């Protein structure tokens, strides 16, 4: 046991860097081969989710503009959101829309979402693309327009619509554009592969992005664990105004807040975004997609996905059409079924276990790991926190997870917020280094859910309060309006009362006449004669 402890000890040596951890690189296996094109699967599943807000309600999602049974051509627009700048979805190939249906949640924490099921046909008939004659002549706003029409979103993983992001950046007139090529997850190698093979396209895309967001200077950032990509980039960057920066590889150096700190020595304010400090961060893949969108007017219908893990015979990077089912890709790599125990979407540090093998590749899916318990062991039993503080050393947001955990467990919500739960980016560095195996991230997520609920209910109660105040105001107003009406009724009543007196007088007069006549009859005289007299 002591020897075991020693080996682990030297595994720990240097594992925790300041504000981050240094996980091993496991990219080599997937980088042995070049990026492979994917043979078209016989059906595609295109989720209609606006990545801007994953918790969006139904009417916020992007709405399909094709009907079931329609035949669609390649590049044809399938769905778009209502408000400008929202995401668009194009057909990766020609085929018929088989259904528009709810598909089950791909992973825990996700909602079941609406998706277009596209039955592909072999002959890829495509819409004619009309690329601009000279894309250098285009005005920035035109560039952004092209990007929006191509339906590009951040391919790094956040998936925020790029056009919206650029417009926001232009409003806040950013100075620096950072192209993020840092890959800190152990397995993911799609960006590195892209840089190795399409460095020049990346540089052109970066120049276009810089022109679009009117930034003064542009930096491409990669980490020091990708020498081949670095060589390719330095070649591609000759004669370009864009500079190259290499940062030390640590997790999560690829997070945009960490990147801004590392490159510009400025911190993004707690609730703000990089544009607030004059920086715009875009992913490598996004840059390439922007190049395709502007130069060839080609919408974003595919992306690079890393397939790796010990259960795959030949790990590769694929150029995958959006909507391809995961098991199709796994088959292409050749799965060793007795090795294959589970599938992870995304990296091993920020990803999720896939519940459904039929889940589609989305625009934000950068990696699929098919693995077994030897490579990625079961999470061990949680032990008591000894406040060792390794998590605090590792936290990139400089929080104190050990105290966060205590206040979350004792449900002291104010304390939890004061400790900065909202600043947590759920990178999981704390849980990786925790010697007590505390699954801190799921604690954070649970606490965040509870806080979100409380916040929404508080918002609602404020709304109700406003309604109630208006209600009272309305009642009072009606009372005030009631006053003059009463006056009118009064006058009416008075008028009627006057006429009633007159009637009374007439009645009494009539009674008088009758009485006289009776008296006359009693006198035995002829009333007529009397009248004549």
């Amino acid at each position, binding site marked *: 046991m002591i020897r075991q402890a020693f080996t682990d000890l030297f595994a720990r040596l240097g594992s925790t860097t300041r504000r981050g951890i240094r996980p091993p690189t496991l990219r080599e296996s997937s980088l042995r081969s070049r990026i492979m094109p994917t043979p078209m699967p016989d059906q595609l599943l295109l989720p209609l989710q606006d990545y801007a807000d994953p918790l969006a309600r139904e009417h916020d999602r992007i709405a399909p503009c094709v009907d079931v049974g329609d035949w669609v051509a390649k590049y044809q627009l399938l769905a778009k959101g209502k408000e400008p700048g929202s995401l668009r979805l194009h057909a990766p190939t020609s085929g018929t829309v088989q259904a528009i249906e709810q598909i089950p949640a791909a992973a825990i924490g996700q909602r079941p979402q609406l998706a277009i099921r596209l039955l592909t046909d072999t002959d890829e008939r495509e819409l004619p693309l009309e690329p601009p004659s000279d894309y250098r002549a285009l005005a920035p706003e035109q560039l952004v327009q092209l990007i929006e029409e191509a339906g590009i979103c951040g391919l790094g993983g956040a998936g925020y619509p790029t056009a919206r992001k650029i417009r926001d950046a232009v409003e806040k007139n950013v100075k620096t554009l950072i192209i993020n090529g840092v890959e800190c997850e152990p397995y993911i190698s799609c960006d590195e592969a892209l840089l190795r093979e399409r460095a020049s396209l990346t540089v052109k895309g970066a120049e276009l992005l810089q022109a679009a967001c009117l930034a003064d200077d542009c930096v491409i950032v990669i980490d020091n664990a990708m020498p081949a990509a670095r060589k390719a980039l330095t070649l591609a960057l000759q004669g370009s105004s864009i500079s190259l920066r290499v940062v030390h590889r640590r997790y999560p150096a690829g997070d945009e807040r960490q990147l801004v700190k590392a490159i510009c020595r400025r911190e993004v304010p707690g609730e703000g975004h990089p544009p607030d400090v004059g920086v715009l961060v875009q992913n490598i893949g996004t840059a390439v997609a922007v190049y395709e969108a502007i130069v060839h007017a080609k919408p974003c219908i595919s992306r690079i996905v890393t397939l790796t893990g010990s259960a795959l015979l030949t790990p590769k990077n694929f150029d995958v059409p959006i909507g391809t089912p995961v098991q199709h890709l796994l088959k292409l790599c050749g799965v060793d079924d007795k090795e294959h125990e589970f599938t992870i979407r995304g990296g091993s540090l920020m990803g999720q276990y896939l519940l459904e093998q039929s889940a589609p590749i989305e625009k934000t899916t950068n990696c699929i790991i098919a693995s077994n318990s030897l490579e990625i062991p079961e999470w061990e039993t949680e032990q008591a926190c000894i406040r060792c503080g390794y998590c605090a050393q590792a936290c990139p947001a400089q929080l104190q997870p050990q105290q966060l955990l*205590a*206040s979350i*467990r*004792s449900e*002291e919500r104010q304390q939890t917020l004061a400790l900065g739960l909202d600043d947590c980016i759920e990178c999981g560095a704390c849980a990786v280094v925790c010697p007590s195996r505390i699954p801190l991230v799921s604690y954070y997520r649970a606490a965040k859910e509870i806080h979100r609920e409380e916040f929404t209910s508080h918002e609602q109660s404020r709304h109700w309060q406003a309604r109630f105040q208006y209600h009272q105001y309305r009642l009072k107003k009606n009372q005030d309006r009631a006053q003059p009406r009463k006056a009118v009724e009064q006058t009416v009543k008075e008028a009627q009362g006057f006429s009633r007196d007159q009637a009374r007088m007439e009645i009494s007069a009539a009674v008088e006449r009758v009485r006289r006549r009776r008296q006359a009859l009693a006198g035995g005289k002829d009333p007529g004669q009397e009248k004549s007299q």
Partner: protein
Amino acid sequence: MATLFSTIIAAALVNNLALVQLLGVSTFFSASRQFSAAAELALLSFLVLFPAACINLLLQALVLEPLNLEFLRLFLFVAVSAGITGLLARQLVSVFPLLARRHIRAVLLMCSNSAVIGLSFLQGSSLSSLPMKLVYSFGAAAGFSMSLLLFAALRQRIDQGSSPAALRGIPLYLISAGIASMALLGFAGLV
């Protein structure tokens, strides 16, 4: 300077009112686990302790001793502290309603707080000169407030733990106060 410093240390740590001399323990434990509340209470108790101690001191030095009326000390001290507490309470209610709503009971309890009286009695014993006694009472009041703060933070950590149900709450606070006062006893003999 050194004597000044050491006097303050002696008053605040070595003869800490709450933890060593076990005075004003009611306030000490009535401070809630909520840290901000405890901080406010610490401030309020300082606002009561220090002036009351000073006034009592001056009364004793300038009025009672010349007139040989020291047998009246207790009554006078209680009267003074009650008066100051009343003033403070009225100010709170009129100016800071939230503070008043939070702490009015504790503040009113302070009027007969043994910390005030005890401090007024004790500070006469060791030191000779009047200014030093004033400094001593400042140190004692500050030390009392400080121990309130320290203990509130400690208590919050204790409540976060999963202690056995039988010991949760006051029993555990008492155990912790015992260990803390053991630590402070260790300072005995310092100055």
